[in-house]
């Protein structure tokens, strides 16, 4: 595997990405903490927090890419896993406030005092320990995804039906978390955090460390995804994406393949949420909003689904655009986002990275062809080497081509 890791082409791209992320994890905190604010190289703290937030989004987009790009499951509910991870972390941070809250209750968070809770609900037990909260960050989204996927994939709910019920799932959770008597702070959510692991959340050093943690985690996730996709299991994943029935006829249990990818992806989304919450300082039910989950899809689509690097690029670009637009032309942002959805699906079906690949591939093939012609030999057309196995061309398995198909 290490041989492949340092290979050329697409694998080299993965290596470069990981290298950039790790470098950023060291350099950005250094430039924030060690350089004087007057210096040209100084990175202000708010930029650190902002990019840290983007990296969490990138991790979420990567998680979605694993299921959508490589397994063909368009989940419109990944925001739910993200938010659940965030809530688990938020609960830990709430417990760390201790008696420094407005009401000064050493055990109950402020909102519980406000809502007349007498004691801590049972599901808040253990969240005063970081290791427990960390476990829950992985377990809760993973378990939900496992149960949900186990039901859905076993009864062969596929395609748009799956998309719609994942959307219903996050919508149901949105409604549930808005309720005050759920014990998660109702529509205000969890906020006003003070400490994480004993360090002040607001401090520059903590922010830089969180940024570094996000970057390292993202690098790790890129490696894990790349390892999954490159393994034999990854081939199976793509087989299910391209022709589920054929894979099943060949004797593979397609539902188990999908279930594994879905669960891993949900855990990754949960981690992204857990890293996100201390950096933005709040988690509220708005994160369950179905529109948030759909926005994640567009990040992955812009960057190029099924390319690992693409979703990261997409998430960073779209969010940077969002920050810029909402600052300069707030009215215009939804037009831009909506237009992006339309433009990407129509003109950039493979996303930025995918387009780059096919452009490079074409250029290389043309060059090879012209060289071969000069030499007078048979042109041996070099196939563009991409880590992304070509997604199914639209209508490839249909006799009738790109035309409306009634959803049976």
């Amino acid at each position: 595997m290490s041989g492949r890791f340092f290979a050329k082409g697409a694998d080299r791209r993965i290596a470069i990405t990981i290298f950039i992320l790790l470098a950023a994890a060291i350099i950005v905190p250094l430039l924030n903490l060690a350089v004087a604010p007057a210096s040209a190289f100084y990175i202000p703290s708010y930029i650190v927090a902002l990019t840290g937030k983007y990296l969490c989004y990138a991790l979420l987009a990567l998680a979605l890419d694993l299921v959508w790009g490589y397994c063909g499951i368009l989940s419109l509910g990944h925001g739910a896993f993200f938010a659940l991870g965030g809530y688990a972390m938020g609960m830990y941070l709430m417990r760390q406030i201790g008696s420094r809250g407005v009401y000064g209750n050493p055990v109950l968070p402020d909102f519980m005092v406000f809502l007349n809770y007498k004691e801590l609900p049972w599901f808040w037990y253990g969240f005063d320990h970081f290791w427990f909260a960390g476990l829950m960050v992985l377990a809760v989204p993973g378990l939900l995804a496992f149960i949900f996927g186990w039901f859905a994939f076993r009864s062969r709910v596929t395609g748009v039906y799956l998309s719609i019920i994942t959307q219903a799932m996050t919508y149901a959770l949105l409604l549930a978390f808005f309720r005050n008597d759920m014990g998660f702070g109702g529509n205000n959510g969890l906020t006003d955090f003070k400490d994480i692991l004993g360090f002040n959340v607001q401090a520059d050093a903590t922010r830089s460390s969180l940024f570094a943690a996000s970057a390292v985690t993202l690098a790790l996730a890129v490696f894990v995804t790349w390892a999954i996709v490159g393994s034999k299991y990854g081939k199976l994943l793509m087989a299910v994406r391209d022709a589920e029935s054929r894979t099943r006829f060949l004797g593979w249990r397609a539902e188990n393949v999908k279930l594994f990818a879905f669960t891993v992806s949900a855990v990754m989304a949960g981690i992204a949420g857990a890293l996100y919450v201390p950096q933005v300082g709040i988690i509220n039910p708005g994160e369950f909003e179905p529109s948030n989950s759909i926005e994640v899809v567009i990040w992955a689509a812009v960057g190029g689904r099924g390319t690992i690097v693409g979703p990261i690029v997409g998430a960073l670009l779209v969010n940077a655009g969002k920050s810029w637009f909402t600052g300069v032309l707030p009215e215009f942002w939804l037009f831009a986002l909506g237009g992006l959805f339309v433009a990407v699906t129509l003109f950039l079906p493979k996303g930025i990275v995918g387009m780059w690949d096919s452009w490079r591939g074409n250029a290389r093939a043309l060059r090879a062809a012209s060289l071969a012609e000069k030499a007078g030999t048979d042109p041996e057309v070099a196939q563009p080497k991409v880590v992304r196995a070509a997604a199914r061309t639209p209508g490839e398995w249909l006799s009738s081509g790109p035309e409306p198909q009634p959803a049976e």
Partner: protein
Amino acid sequence: MKLFRMIGLALLFLLATLSLSRAGEADLRGIIAKFATAKGFSETGAVVHELAATGDPLVERPLAALADGALYVRKADSLVLVGKEVGESVQLFDPLSGEAAGEAAKDDITKIKVNNTLRRVIRDALGTLTLGAKDPAVRLAAAGTMFKTPDAANIEPLDTAIANETVPSVKALLEQARAASVLVSDRPEADKLAAIQLIGARGDRDAVSLLTSVEANASDAVKQAATAAIANINSTLAFWDAGQNIWYGISLGSVLLLAAIGLAITFGVMGVINMAHGEMVMLGAYTTFVVQQVIRTSFPGLFDWSLVIALPLAFLVAGFVGFVIERGIIRFLYGRPLETLLATWGVSLVLQQAVRSIFGPTNQEVGNPSWMSGSFDIGQLAITWNRLWILVFALSVFAVLLYVMKRTPWGLQMRAVTANRRMAASMGIKTPWVDALTFALGSGIAGIAGVALSQIDNVSPNLGRSYIIDSFMVVVFGGVGNLWGTLVGAFSLGIVNKFLEPYAGAVLGKIVVLVLIILFIQKRPRGLFALKGRAVEA
């Protein structure tokens, strides 16, 4: 001589009657004058009783004025007068004839004070008085008041009123009021038992509350009878409650049906996931708003027709937008449902923001025409007109759509293209044209749904957002590609939702429904009324 005696007698008689009526009015004036000297509420109350005891309909004016705190004593001559405040001064009127009696500054008169106890006394007295009114509606209202405030003293006036009453409905209510009064009196037990039976037959919540108060302090036999009657009424009421829930459910179902039916065409027949469907509904609602604005400023007389005018316009506006979306975007994405989903989501964002930029982010006010406001009762059910009209409207849209699909050449072409596109094309059907028109039809129907929903929901740029998930649930639950499935799906989801609400609360009920649908899809991935086919993927 005889003649003279006759004339004299007649004159005397005439004089007598005149003086008698004069005397009656004079007596009344005498009693009213006592208000000027009455000290404290209890003495005023005694005067009220005295006035009411005359049974003269003339006393209604001073008593009503007293209850409203508009009865004054003029300090100069201690005359009791009805007053009406006009700015700093008070216009005065005669308490019996209502003739104007000049003006007075506030300092020159004293208001006769009343408290709540006194007001109740006055209301009861007026209730007794109005039992003799000419208008049956007034008598009915009086009987209703007396039923709610039973008093043993009411029995006798009620008896006379019952004897004189000719209108059956008023008579029935009078008897119930009498029964209620009997229950609080010290009449014999047999009378009370009969009264309980009479009230039990009434069978509504007022009867229950009355009987419950009786039950608390009564003899054993009466208590037993009251308990039995309450139990009886409660079981009837439970039945009506179920009826009420079903009605609410049907009403919600009709809203869902309206929102989902357009989707049933675009998603069900064409297989296009239109996430901008909710925005078509919103466009319809905003069309209604614009139409009403134009009518308000230019043709105020036409306001009752505004919805009728808005319907075709909303259909055209939303249909046209749908047509443009299909030709501009969706036709390039056929066979790629997930991409269609994303592209139409983008369209929905653009439409929302466009509406927000034009009309602003706040809710717009859309008025109800007169024939859609108000409500009426069936038994214990209160049914509002707008809900009823929306139900009727949803069903008629459904019927028209079914007719179009099954009985018109266009519908035939649509179904042919759905069933076998190439064969249909070979037969000379312009399939791209059919696609575009089908999508426009689905969008247009969403637009007219918006007209209806503007009557019961807030018209804001987010209007569509709130319906999109519910609509998808209905279509998926009912079975895609089947209009009947959508009908059944909408109404069953509506009714289940409303039955869960009393137990689980509105939000939790909705969550339960969502979870149930998610589980249901596991069981039947293609909905209630799935089309049967041989496809492997099915």
